């Protein structure tokens, strides 16, 4: 079977999942109403949603089929699976949000198509604009500083009623810049350096920009006050440096420098040290009852997960609403939820609550498969820029999952980033579809070259 046909067939499970998911949510709601009045809704609406979703995905698939015939066949279905899963979960939390999210998916797929069409000839022309892209990326990161912080971090800008998180787009810009920059300097970083105590010290001329990046990411930490984003950026940077140079010493020194910097900076930013306190003692009664900057959210997330257990409470069964706080039955669950931010940062806790460890393992497996495809593309790619680009994009994606899931499960201090493709959020959806488009572009070229090579 050809790659594109495999891709098409792999979309069917995602469509089925979305139908089954909506059916489960409707069923559990009707159960609460105590009647079978919604029987038609279950079969008709669920299947309609499933069909619409399948239709949109098939349209996007046709774009890929026409423009990137050799691209990796699993990437897009995996992302569609995540997206459909997220959509059902968001619908279950608040149906209004799910409609918005569905709109974002349509726009996201539009952007996905646009990216492919724009760069189908040769995405490597991005290299020509690398400094422009880098400056754009950093500007995007700094931009939120002009707006009021949310929970102490500067992460979003307000355009009318729309809240945009520029960091989601900046991550792609920075990866593109780094891939291009490291392609040029990778040889020099390794060979032109002097060796000291077993560590290659590259000349300052080449090492300088890297120090600048380290400084930028720490500055970022200081400036936008968000550990999550800086870990993501710096982690992706180290991954790319490692692939570019094959020198573990760079990574070790980088991690040490970052840890040192983070340690110094964290002590001076109240909101970050609050987060670390909450991380260390989430069940401390004082932190638990603090009005802001406490551990209420983390503790509620952990309780929600404990409540889920191995098999979960069942799709649509999670306790989200606090009866007293929801003024009317139509009040959005988001505003009176037992668990704050159930649709964005803490969607993982809701998933574990409803589907248990088994569901969480499934979700993590899908992410891992996506990451595996990403690295596979990097390995197949012929030129350094493509390799580094695929590595960077995949790393930043994997790190994003790690930062938020690790935060929600108390593996690392909690910082708010979205769970890619699953969390609610326009910026997140759009940026991740662009990321997906870039990976498909790299993979198409790599596999075409591999196929035509002797």
């Amino acid at each position, binding site marked *: 079977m050809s790659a594109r046909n495999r891709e098409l067939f792999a979309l069917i499970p995602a469509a089925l999942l979305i139908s089954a998911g909506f059916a*489960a949510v409707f*069923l*559990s709601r009707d*159960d*609460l109403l105590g009647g079978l009045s919604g029987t038609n809704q279950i079969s008709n609406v669920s299947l309609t949603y499933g069909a619409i979703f399948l239709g949109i995905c098939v349209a996007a698939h046709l774009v890929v089929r026409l423009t990137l015939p050799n691209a990796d066949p699993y990437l897009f279905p995996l992302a569609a699976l995540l997206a459909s899963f997220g959509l059902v979960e968001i619908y279950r939390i608040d149906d209004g949000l799910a409609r918005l999210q569905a709109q974002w998916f349509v726009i996201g797929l539009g952007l996905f198509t646009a990216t492919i069409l724009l760069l189908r000839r040769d995405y490597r022309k991005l290299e020509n604009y690398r400094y422009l892209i880098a400056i754009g990326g950093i500007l995007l990161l700094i931009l939120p500083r002009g707006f009021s912080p949310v929970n102490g971090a500067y992460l979003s800008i307000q355009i009318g009623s729309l809240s945009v998180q520029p960091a989601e787009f900046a991550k792609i810009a920075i990866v593109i810049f780094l891939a291009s920059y490291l392609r040029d300097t990778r040889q020099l970083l390794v060979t032109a350096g002097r060796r000291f105590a077993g560590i290659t010290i590259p000349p300052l001329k080449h090492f300088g920009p890297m120090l600048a990046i380290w400084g930028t990411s720490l500055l970022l930490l200081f400036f936008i006050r968000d550990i999550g984003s800086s870990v993501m950026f710096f982690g992706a940077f180290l*991954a790319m440096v*490692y*692939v*570019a140079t*094959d020198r573990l010493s760079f990574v070790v020194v980088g991690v040490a420098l970052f840890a040192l910097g983070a340690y110094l900076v964290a002590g001076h930013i109240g909101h970050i040290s609050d987060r670390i306190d909450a991380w260390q003692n989430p*069940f401390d*009664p004082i932190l*638990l009852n603090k009005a802001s900057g406490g551990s209420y959210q983390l*503790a509620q997330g*952990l*309780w*929600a*997960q*404990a*409540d*889920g*257990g*191995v*098999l*979960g*409470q*069942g*799709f649509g*069964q999670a*306790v989200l609403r*606090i*009866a007293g706080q929801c003024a009317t*039955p139509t009040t959005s669950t988001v505003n009176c939820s*037992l668990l704050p931010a159930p649709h964005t940062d803490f969607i993982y806790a809701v998933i*574990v609550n409803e589907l*248990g*460890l088994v569901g*969480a*393992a499934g979700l*993590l497996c899908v*992410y*891992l498969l996506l*990451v*595996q495809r990403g*690295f596979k593309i*990097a*390995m197949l790619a012929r030129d*350094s820029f493509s*390799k580094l680009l695929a*590595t960077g994009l*995949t*790393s930043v994606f*994997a790190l994003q*999952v*790690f930062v938020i*899931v*690790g935060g929600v*499960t*108390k*593996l690392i201090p909690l910082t708010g980033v979205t769970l890619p493709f699953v969390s609610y959020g326009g910026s997140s959806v759009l940026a991740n579809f662009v990321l997906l488009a870039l990976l498909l572009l790299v993979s198409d070229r790599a596999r075409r070259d591999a196929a035509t090579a002797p």
Partner: protein
Amino acid sequence: MNKPISRLFLVALLMFAALLGATSWWTVLRADSLDHSTANARTLIRAQKIRRGTIRAADGTVIARSTRDAEGVYHRRYPTGALFGHPVGYSYANLGQTELERYRNDALLGMTNAITTTFEQLIGKQKEGDDVRTSLDPKAQRLALDEIAKVGQSGAAVALDPRTGAVKVMASTPTYDPNTIANKGVLAAANKDEQRKPLVNRAVQFGAAPGSTFKVVTATAAIDTGTYSPSSTVDGTNDVKVSGVPLANDFNQSFGPIDLKTALAKSVNTVFAQVGEKLGKPTMKEYMERFGFDSKPPLDYPKDSMSASVVAPSPPGHAVSPTSKFVDVGRMSIGQGGLQATPLQMAQVAAAVANGGQLMKPHITDRIVDRDGRTVDTISPAKQSTVMKPSTAAAVTDMMVAVVQNGTGTKAAIPGIQVAGKTGTAETEFGAKVNDVWFIGFAPADHPRIAVAVTVKAVTGFGGDFAAPIARDIMESLLK
């Protein structure tokens, strides 16, 4: 460049493994302790959405049921009001659960069978609570409460089936209404009411001197050890020195040499004090423990809502072992000397004799029934201890029959049914005139079906006059 990429994938693999590990930690290893953490409102919120099981009396009368409001939250109602407030307790989201509601909480929430629950979760079935059927008898309970209230300010009664340990009556006055206890300030006011203490279940809490009803324990020890027989004669003179202090009989009556059976019928203090002294502390302790003294009863009821029946002489002012040097064994043997027994304990004393010396574990729950009417669990009768030989039980029964036939307990007699019993009148701090009156007994004497203990606080009079008629009416009602 491919080698570092594959190593990078390995790192990603390890990171995801760590995520899975952390998730497992919270969902499996730490789940139980988190679910039961006090600050965690989740279980409480969920519990409100589960239809809590109905609690019923033996005849099917609904004692507690849950009704759902428009928001899908269940609220507890107690149709019988104050009648079963003490044995059954209450269950409210803000107050938690008490008494049987607390003891059977898991069953009432449908959480007893983990396998069913998981299976039902898989098919998406909403959890439902199981019903609890008790052995409580509403008619006899009502009668007990009314009659105690007529005689005194406070008191309690317990009626058991001696063959199974099933609790038929657990009455304590003053009562409280579990329907209104959740209203603002009601619980706080009830807690502060030092005068009436309406929340105290006097049937199982804060024992008092059982007075002469305890002579049944002493008589059992005397006969079962072979030291005495019902016809053994003991000096029943008034003011015999017990532990160096003269002990008086009722009305300072002097009996002279008297056999044990007649001494029980006439409730001669000096006789049983001397018997107790002769048996000695270790023997008394042995028999008291067999009857259930010194430890909390194995009732299906929260342990911290029950008191053990103990001897607490002053000095030292707290519970000690019956073999302690502080114990005046003579006075303890007639139910004084700091002895504190609950009505449940004294009903068990009667029940042990009634059941041929075999003491059964008391229980309020009869069975657990699921929503479809299937019996999930039946509380089968279980032995608590072997107190005495059957021959001893027969001899003590014979002596207790004499109490009701021609002794101090004639007012407990039921026409056509032979009743065995023992009266008790314990002096209280109010002075000689005001007493705690007691009666323990069982019927029919040849094939006992009901054992009972009744006590009323601060009554001017004797157990035979005030407690015995209540016990008679309870037994008569239950035997009908």
